[in-house]
């Protein structure tokens, strides 16, 4: 059962543990490097002492009496034979030793100046915070180290240097840690505050360790290998070294061994303790396993992506989740996710037994874990979890009463959170309703591919089941797909029609699309619309009339389709919806697509998320239904162009080649007029590029003009469902210039790109212009050039992903605390005002229409009122 903790952590203080605290905190003094005795029982006073916590099942902690997983672990300590410098505080010690008197320990700033310095520092801190203060202190220390006489006791000061990593030298003479510690002890509290040291948190002499805490066993559990052998944690290894050397040092000192031996052991102890804290100190060889791989000690545990902070603290693991391949299912609603039965029987929802639902929940228990829909566990009010098996079933059925919790299988309509990585925006995690389906993949409506940026070439997605009422409520209200239709990035619909559905809607909204009444009703029924009263009472029904049945009766809209740019007069280009009737215009992707047009945006605004999502689903299915009804296929024939057009294109390319040759001739004769600020060579490249691009565009235009408008390929292009004119032109006419690094291809062999060309050939073909279309096929060198640019763009993507990922991480980290306060100001975590009004007008982008408030609609509404 969950132990509810009703305490709240209010603040966390940072400081350094004094020797006294270390001793008081410790539950055991460690005196021997041995771990286990002959029976395999932890040795008293050893590193695995059971006073430090237990990791073996069956043992009880001597300190708290807790068993495995109950005892949090307790610290121990060792007494160091000689003081050791803490590697992480070497910089601080160095600063202090250099800028305080060697005799009296006072700071080397004269009395009359010290107030001024303090004043200066507090001012700097007020202005720029703690970090600025630290920087200022750094500057100050640089000044102090050149003072050679103490202003207080007049003692002469010597130059102190640091031999990295931990040895201090005073005038070339070694300063032992004992000496260092003594000096640090002398520094008075008042002087410490100048250095920005809070004496209650840290006395500088503490950083020269005399006792060392030993982390609990639970922090460094040993693993038992298959062979029954024990393998100790890296930290235990390191601590073993420390304790061993420390004992040796003790013995030698007591035995009165020569100074050199003691000195050597002391250095060795320093090395071990240093690498215990940080095994990546640049001047030291890292401590290694016998196998040769470096030990992972404290610093390595904390830092970097795999370290404790980013891996375990900022990122959590979760139960009640599933992951599998996704596949499309257009018959699902947009806010649904189809899950396999296997998943549904593993993931569960906890339901509390009450007098009203006890019979209902008993039904699940009696079915057991192997029959769907059953239940897997029963949780008793005392927190005991009971697995439901065919054997325990009967007993549990008798036992169960209000207050129990039954973990039943997932069922249709349950709440889930669906996610695809990389989770770049909030639409990467949305709440879907469960739909249990046969098969082994997650199924989703292809319309929601866009926000997840998913496709079905093997993508996998994650599913999470919220386990508490609170979590479910938040998921349903804040993360439900319908509420996420409008992107907070630009205030337009991010879910829209695409691919087949888009093409279908385009065809259906054509002026001359006709259906018989039967067909129309059939089509509507197939998308689960059963309300046919809005169909006009005619035998022949137009496509637009079919669409109109889906539009709310009081909806007015004026928008423009893609054609509008070319021809403003075309009635098809203006989408006009009056009182829920589509009067004119084709619905292409300028109106229904994601991130485009305002049709979906307006519906969302006026009729709400649920209606909009429903509407989208219907439109989507309708589009698909149209294609299944009419049939839709495309083939090679669709990219055929007539012989005339073919000749025209050839002519264009040929004449361009002639022009380019002329340019090259001029260049070779040095008579080419240079563009301002360019060399002649650059000018030539620019001019050639311009000419070739023009040629490609012109041939593309000829293709667009002559291609059969009614071909399926053109349908797809015009609707915006898939493909564009450039694709078509590249297939049927001319692939065009292959560009690398903003210019033509120029690298390769000496003075030429490929050995099939002559040296210094600057002609189009030799520099990556492909005059064939894909259908005609590419020549060998053209194929080579294409693969060059293909590789280039592949590298581009591979290099960009980590870069933009890092930018995103930085941005998110820098801005995650900004929120709107109750007074509508934007403030950060320290309540500093960043903006007085969010975005200068306080408008939420998600609630705006492409960032604005639709003034026009309101005006029109008021004007049309009478």
């Amino acid at each position, binding site marked *: 059962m969950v132990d509810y903790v009703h305490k709240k952590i*209010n*603040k*966390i*203080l940072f*400081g*350094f543990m004094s020797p006294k605290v270390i001793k008081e905190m410790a539950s055991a003094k460690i005196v021997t490097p041995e771990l286990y005795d002959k029976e395999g029982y932890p040795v008293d006073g050893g590193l695995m002492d059971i006073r430090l916590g237990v990791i073996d099942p069956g043992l009880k902690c001597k300190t708290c009496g807790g068993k495995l997983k109950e005892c949090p672990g307790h610290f121990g300590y060792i007494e160091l034979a000689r003081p050791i410098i803490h590697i*992480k*505080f070497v910089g601080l010690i160095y600063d202090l030793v250099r800028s305080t008197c060697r005799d009296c320990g006072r700071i080397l700033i004269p009395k009359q100046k010290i107030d001024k310095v303090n004043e200066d520092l507090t001012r700097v801190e007020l202005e720029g915070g*703690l970090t600025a203060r630290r920087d200022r202190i750094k500057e100050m220390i640089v000044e102090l180290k050149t003072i050679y006489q103490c202003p207080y006791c007049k003692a002469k000061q010597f130059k102190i240097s640091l031999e990295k990593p931990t040895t201090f030298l005073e005038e070339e003479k070694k300063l032992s840690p004992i000496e260092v510690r003594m000096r640090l002890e002398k520094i008075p509290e008042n002087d410490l505050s100048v250095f*920005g*040291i*809070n004496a209650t*948190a840290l006395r500088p002499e503490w950083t020269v360790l005399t006792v060392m805490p030993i982390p609990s066993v639970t922090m460094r559990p040993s693993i038992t290998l298959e062979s029954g052998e024990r393998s100790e944690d890296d930290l235990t290894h390191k601590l073993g070294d420390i304790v061993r050397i420390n004992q040796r040092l003790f013995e030698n000192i007591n035995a009165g061994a020569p100074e050199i031996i003691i000195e050597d052991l002391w250095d060795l102890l320093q090395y071990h303790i240093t690498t215990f804290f940080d095994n990546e100190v640049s001047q030291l060889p890292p401590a290694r396993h016998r196998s040769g791989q470096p030990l992972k000690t404290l*610093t390595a545990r904390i830092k970097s992506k795999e370290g404790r902070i980013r891996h375990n*603290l900022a990122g959590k693991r979760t139960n009640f989740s599933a992951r599998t391949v996704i596949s499309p299912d257009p018959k699902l609603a947009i806010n649904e996710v189809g899950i396999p039965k296997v998943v549904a029987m593993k993931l569960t929802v906890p339901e509390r037994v009450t007098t009203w639902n006890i019979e209902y929940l008993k039904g699940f228990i009696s079915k057991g874990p192997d029959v769907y829909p059953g239940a897997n566990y029963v949780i008793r009010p005392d927190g005991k979890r009971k697995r439901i098996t065919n054997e325990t079933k009967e007993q549990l059925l008798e036992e169960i009463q209000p207050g129990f919790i039954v973990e039943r299988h997932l069922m249709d309509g349950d709440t889930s959170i669906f996610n695809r990585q990389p989770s*770049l*925006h*909030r639409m990467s995690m949305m709440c879907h309703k469960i739909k249990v389906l046969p098969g082994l993949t997650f199924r989703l409506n292809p319309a929601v591919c866009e926000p997840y940026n998913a496709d079905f070439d093997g993508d996998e997605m994650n599913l999470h089941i919220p386990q508490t009422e609170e979590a479910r409520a*938040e998921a349903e209200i804040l993360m439900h797909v319908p509420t996420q239709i409008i992107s*907070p*990035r*630009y*205030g337009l619909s991010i879910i829209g029609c695409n691919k087949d559905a888009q093409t279908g809607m385009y065809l259906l909204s054509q002026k001359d699309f006709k259906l018989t009444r039967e067909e129309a009703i059939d089509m509507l029924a197939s998308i689960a619309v059963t309300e046919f009263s809005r169909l006009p009472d005619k035998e022949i029904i137009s496509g637009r009339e079919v669409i109109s049945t889906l539009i709310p009766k009081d909806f007015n809209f004026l928008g423009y389709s893609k054609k509008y740019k070319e021809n403003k007069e075309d009635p098809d280009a203006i989408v006009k919806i009056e009182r829920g009737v589509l009067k004119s215009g084709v619905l292409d992707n300028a109106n229904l697509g994601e991130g485009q047009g305002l049709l979906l945006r307006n519906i969302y605004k006026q009729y709400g998320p649920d209606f909009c999502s429903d509407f989208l689903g219907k439109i989507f299915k309708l589009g698909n239904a149209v294609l299944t009804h009419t049939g839709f296929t495309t083939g090679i024939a669709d990219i055929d162009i007539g012989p005339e057009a073919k000749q025209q294109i050839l002519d264009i390319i040929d004449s361009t080649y002639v022009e380019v040759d002329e340019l090259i001739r001029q260049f070779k004769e040095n008579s080419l007029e240079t563009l*301002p600020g360019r060399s002649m060579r650059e000018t030539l490249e620019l001019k050639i590029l311009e000419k070739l691009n023009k040629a490609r565009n012109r041939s593309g235009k000829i293709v667009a003009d002559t291609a059969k408008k009614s071909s399926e390929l053109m349908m797809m292009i015009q609707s915006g469902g898939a493909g564009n004119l450039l694709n078509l032109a590249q297939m049927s006419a001319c692939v065009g210039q292959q560009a690398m*690094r*903003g*210019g033509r291809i120029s690298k390769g062999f000496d003075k030429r790109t490929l050995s099939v060309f002559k040296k210094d050939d600057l002609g189009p073909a030799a520099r990556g212009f492909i005059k064939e279309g894909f259908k005609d096929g590419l020549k060998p060198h053209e194929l080579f050039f294409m693969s060059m640019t293909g590789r280039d763009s592949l590298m581009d993507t591979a*290099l*960009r992903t980590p*870069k933009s*990922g890092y*930018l*995103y991480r*930085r*941005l998110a*980290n820098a*801005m*995650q605390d*900004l*929120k709107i306060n109750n007074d*509508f100001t*934007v403030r950060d*975590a*320290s309540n500093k005002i*960043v*903006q007085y009004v*969010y*975005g200068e007008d306080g*408008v*939420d*982008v998600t*609630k*705006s229409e492409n960032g*604005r*408030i*639709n*003034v026009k609609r*309101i005006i029109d509404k*008021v*004007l049309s009122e009478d």
Partner: protein
Amino acid sequence: MEHKAFKDYQDLIPEKILEDVEKSLPEKISESKVKKILELIYEEYKNSLAEPGESVGLVAAESIGEPSTQMTLNTFHFAGVSEMNVTTGLPRIIEVLDGRAEISTKMMHVYLKKPYSEGKEIKKIAESIKETTLKEYIQEVSIDIADSQMTMALDQDKLERIGLKLGAIIKILEKSFAKGYSFKPGKEADNILVIKSTSKEDDLNNIYKLKEKLQDVYINGIKGIKQVLPVKKGDEYIIVTSGSNIKDIFKLEFVNPDKTTTNDIYEIERMLGIEAARQSIINEVDKVIEEQGLNVDMRHIMLISDIMTTSSTMLGVNRYGIVKEKPSVLARASFETPIKHIINASISGETDYLRSVIENVMINQVVPVGTGLPRLMVKTKKKKSED
């Protein structure tokens, strides 16, 4: 504003929306209708306000971070024949948000005052602001080995174009090489410059070295401007430069300082202040996003720009900038260099009050954003039996 009703809503509705309304109103409209429209718009505006607790910062980060994966890495691009090579795309965004002092391609758009902007002498003006070194004026150099002296023939035409005579050049050279060499005009022609070492023991080697040094001596134009390109923009001529130095450009009498801009945000901060830098960040980021054909709302860019500039100096979005300024130890440690932050915190005995998001995630507490903000307080009645 024509309609009286506008006045009542002046303080309630942002100016921009009011302007929108004014533009979209039909010419003839009754006052009562205007009032009604404004009433409805005010209502709509209030409904569109972002709610308290909204995590606008993260939304902004997402809105920039997500499309940045779709940008091309291509550093340079060809917008047309008459454009300079400029860093765009993702590298540029990173550069701007990093708050880097040195950017990779500096560029200015120099606008000119009225008579000059008509383009009559545009080429000459452009040429005059370009930084030139002696190298560009040298036609020929010959070294007399016997006398250890060097003669230079300068390009008379070019000198004339910038209005400098040989004498002036000599003065510049004398200034930059105060000791050791003499510069004298040659006798043969007007454009000959004779350079001689004044110390006797000077060997040939030094003369050769001097030759290299002399080539880089700054002669004319504005320092830092490497290339100039006169461009017609709308109906006026402007000069696009590579390299930036608005401090000196503003001093020129033919330059219109109101419109002249640079893409060097640090320079803008130095010259025009932090508010200008803020706007400049917005412009630069928006420019890149627009170029890439992406759609990101202005408010997100504004917020990023604001957080970079609220502390009155430019802060980069990195561990030396914004993150460094965070009050929470754990928040800083969770970003980069965690050990350093924890050690420093222990030295000065810092306290983490757990007020921002990440620390609360770390210790499994409710995050103080959005739905984590509202609290329930219950006033319990004292039970009488207990009294």
